[in-house]
């Protein structure tokens, strides 16, 4: 094989080897492409915003004086109402347990896990959060549910 051919082969191998890839968070986030596993992002993209799929913003109901005013999710009060707070509706359930998404009641309500009290959220019978959106919220909890 001549030198030029060797160079083509080497360039091809290096191009492939150097093309390190990663899945895009935007692809996972679906109807909220800017959603990240931080509380400020979840507040902005999930609690405050009705997304492009038609999923209702949480604060449509979860607002002081609203139909779910017992758990406001408006900015400034939402974090304190979620992290390490017990649910009044289910004995022993904690809404967000830092580091433990599976046992966080917020995740169970969003996923519609058997055993939840009341309806899966959002209670408008859908659209619900996508699997990707929920996985990003799960990751925020897994990372310690920081007020970041």
């Amino acid at each position: 094989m001549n030198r030029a051919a060797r160079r083509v082969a080497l360039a091809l191998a290096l191009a492939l080897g150097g093309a390190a890839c990663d899945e895009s968070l935007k692809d996972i986030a679906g109807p909220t492409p800017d959603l990240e596993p931080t509380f400020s992002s979840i507040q902005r993209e999930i609690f405050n915003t009705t997304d492009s799929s038609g999923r209702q913003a949480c604060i449509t109901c979860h607002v002081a004086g609203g139909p779910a005013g017992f758990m406001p999710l408006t900015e400034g009060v939402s974090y304190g109402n979620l992290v390490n707070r017990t649910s009044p509706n289910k004995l022993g359930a904690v809404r967000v347990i830092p580091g433990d998404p599976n046992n966080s009641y917020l995740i169970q309500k969003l996923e519609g896990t058997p055993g939840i009290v009341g309806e899966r959220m959002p209670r408008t019978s859908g659209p619900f959060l996508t699997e990707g959106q929920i996985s990003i919220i799960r990751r925020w909890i897994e990372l310690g549910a920081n007020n970041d």
Partner: protein
Amino acid sequence: MKHFVRHTLLTLALVALGTPLAWAQAQPADEEDPDLEVNVSQPDFTLAELPTNLRLPKGKFAFRVTHRFARPLGEGDFTDLLEDFFGFDSGAQIGLELRYGLFRGAQVGINRTSERTIQFFGQYDLRSQQSFPVGLGVWASMDGTNNFRDSYSPALGLIVSRELGRWGALYAEPIWVNNTNPEPSELTDEDNSSFIVGLGARLRIRPTVYVTAEVSPRVTGYAPGDALISFGVEKRVGGHAFQLNFSNGFGTTMGQIARGGTSNDDWYIGFNITRKFY
């Protein structure tokens, strides 16, 4: 990154598809090429999944079909298995592969599996066993899901082979495969790459009959499920090789191989058919 990947795709597509056709017309293959001879120790370009160091003559093509039936062989009792004709009644993951000898010792190809993964690959024979204790080949590939629109997994590795006279060959294949983890890095603490060391053998038990076995353990990095294992029996007939195989997964592209087999002890029947056009 997507732009970069698309450029890489375009380059690969041109190399894998455009260039060979142009070269084929411009440069007729040398009929004296020793690569045209049957290599009885390495009669095919793959074991069940892992590549071998068989050289594809310059300007020639080879085509391969892979079939992995989706029915676990352990499902139900033996009567159920017989009723389903050992799984042949079930759906399958099918792969179609075309490869081309770009120049002496170098081959490129494309492989598409029926769950819409496309893999482009290139392989170059660095050293043959005639001048070195082992045969050495370099492997480079990139596969992408959704018809090469998503989840790109580039791979780079070595194919080390040792022919056992005319009795077959042994293989060790250290290969790095990137982006095997389907989760974005923001959502996981696990590695995004896998480093596999494929180990395999093909033994010639009759003049044209072989048995093959391979395992692709992930020695470091992302390693879901169990390592992909396959074994099979193979018959070479002229330019054809027919292989009946058993695997603990469906993977045939390098990204799929690195992601491993199933972790629930399920085994599946499958076959490979290769046709050399020379």
